[in-house]
């Protein structure tokens, strides 16, 4: 009998809610740790904080002004003090100003994240659906030729450099065939309100294709395992004896059995999805958060880099949280352990 059940009984909280609360607290702690790690790394960089703060304008600023900036932002104080100061500001919603874009970090992240989401969400859903479908087909007839082909495909996907696949798609469909636009989120020359949905979709096709292909592998393999396991159950044999077709059984029974685990994998893979999005954005010149992260890292934009670290940690953390919740729901044994 675990402590949580006793405690929950005392508090009259349903065990799932208690679990959720505990995980949320842990997530908050995690975010603080991530912030500390990111801050420490950023401070360790051989970049003068005043230079990084000013960006290109640093060239024209004299020593007295530098000292004033250092004093105002606390650059001359010990690192832990600076960290707490920055954290305090961040909790109040002020993440500072990006030296590359000359705009508030929160605003830059908001805009760019929305653009990345436009890319990641369809890719996530498509990749998940495709992976599930392939896993189902593979697991339905374990050992068959379809199973072997799909396993080989998933295996190949894990070895594939994501950015190379994106480049191949670009070469074939945009440069050679001219079926898709070569870059960017919208056609050139149009104001945002003049861009039609069709045009937006046209620009989404290649990047989403590239990104979704990458997400297929883990989902397909996991689904396959679960489906195969389900197909071995006794009552499945019974259903076959009754004359039910393989496909029917697979769809009716195994799919339900494998759906939740597949979803779990999807949520746990949000970190990898973002990683894939970073390179896809680079290849397709998509103005998303990934490219902003690269620019921030290459060009010493510390406030933006820290802001992105926090934002992505939150993103991944939520994904993991949901994955854990789902895993809980799938396997009741875990509930007791929590």
């Amino acid at each position, binding site marked *: 009998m675990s402590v949580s059940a006793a405690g929950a009984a005392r508090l009259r909280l349903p065990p799932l809610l208690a679990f959720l609360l505990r995980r949320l607290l842990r997530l908050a702690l995690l975010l603080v*740790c991530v912030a500390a790690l990111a801050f420490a*790394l950023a401070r360790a960089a051989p970049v003068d904080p005043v230079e990084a703060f000013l960006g290109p304008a640093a060239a024209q600023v004299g020593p007295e002004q530098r000292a004033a900036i250092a004093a105002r932002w606390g650059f001359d104080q010990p690192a832990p003090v600076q960290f707490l100061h920055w954290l305090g500001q961040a909790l109040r919603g002020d993440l500072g100003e990006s030296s590359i874009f000359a705009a508030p970090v929160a605003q830059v992240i908001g805009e760019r994240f929305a653009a990345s989401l436009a890319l990641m969400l369809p890719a996530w859903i498509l990749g998940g659906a495709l992976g599930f479908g392939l896993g189902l087909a593979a697991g339905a007839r374990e050992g068959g030729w379809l199973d072997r082909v799909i396993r080989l495909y998933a295996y190949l996907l894990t070895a594939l450099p994501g950015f190379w696949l994106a*480049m191949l798609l670009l070469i074939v469909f945009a440069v050679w065939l001219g079926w898709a636009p070569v870059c960017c989120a919208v056609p050139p020359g149009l104001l945002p309100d003049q861009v039609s949905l069709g045009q937006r979709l046209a620009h989404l096709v290649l990047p989403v294709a590239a990104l979704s292909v990458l997400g297929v592998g883990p989902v397909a393999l996991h689904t396959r395992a679960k489906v195969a396991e389900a197909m071995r159950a006794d009552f499945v044999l019974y259903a076959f004896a009754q004359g039910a077709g393989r496909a029917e059984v697979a769809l009716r029974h195994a799919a339900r059995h494998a759906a939740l685990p597949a979803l779990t994998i999807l949520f746990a893979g949000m970190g990898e999805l973002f990683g894939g999005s970073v390179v896809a954005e680079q290849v397709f010149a998509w103005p998303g958060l990934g490219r902003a992260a690269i620019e921030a890292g290459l060009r010493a934009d510390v406030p933006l880099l820290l802001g992105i670290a926090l934002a992505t940690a939150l993103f991944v953390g939520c994904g*993991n949280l949901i994955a854990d919740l789902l895993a809980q729901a799938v396997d009741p044994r875990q509930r007791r352990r929590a």
Partner: protein
Amino acid sequence: MNARAKIKARVNARGRLLLTGLTAALLLGGALLAGHGMDAALLRPRFGLAALPPGPGYPFGTDALGRDLLARSLRGLETSLLVGLLAATASTLIALLLAGLAMLGRAADAIVGLAVETCIGLPHLVLMILVAFALGGGVGAVVAAVALTHWPVLTRILRAEFQAVLTADYVIHARRFGHGPWFILRRHLLPHALPQLAVGFVLMLPHAILHEAALTFVGFGIAPARPSIGGLLAEALGSLSAGWWWLGVLPGALLLAAVLCLDGIASGLRAWLSPRVAEA
């Protein structure tokens, strides 16, 4: 199937994996040696031989400055493999160290657990960008960045392993006999960890290489003197519309082949170390 046939199948599966591993190792080694043996002049700009498509004498074609793409790709592969090896070694050692530290007590365990979760909490690429930035963004920074982002998963596995070992009867008896923690570490924990370490190391290698390629692709660690596959592909991106498709397609294909070879070696190694795994 009867028992004899089952055993035969098991041996066959293991044998097949071993053979695959060996072949992959030979292929990879051969490619690297060939790359090393190629004339260094092929790597340097050669005016007049710019942007030639693949053909006789130039199996991969040449780039905008007349440098032979095959030679550069093979050198790039060598760099990627070196970086991957360094990074995987460092990660493995860090994992071992941390897992061992975690065994010292509950507080240590909690701290290590938090560290693991923190590093997993960030997307790989963001953490790598942070580390590369922290270390100044050069080639060394890329190595460190890749090295410092792969240890969490292995640490978790090792922790679980160590915990299982420590709660085993024979270890409890060893403790009762008065053997110190060093002795336990050497005699019990390490031998148990070694196969996991080896497998973890070999599994980490392809990931490390792919991540290194991604990091150089987005622009960290660019050093024209030491080509890397990611760097080659980043350069190629600029000239795709000029029709020089081979600059983008071929180095990436080479990387894919190398990673597949490494996967083959990995499964061969697993088959060799733990026959049960061969069936998976």
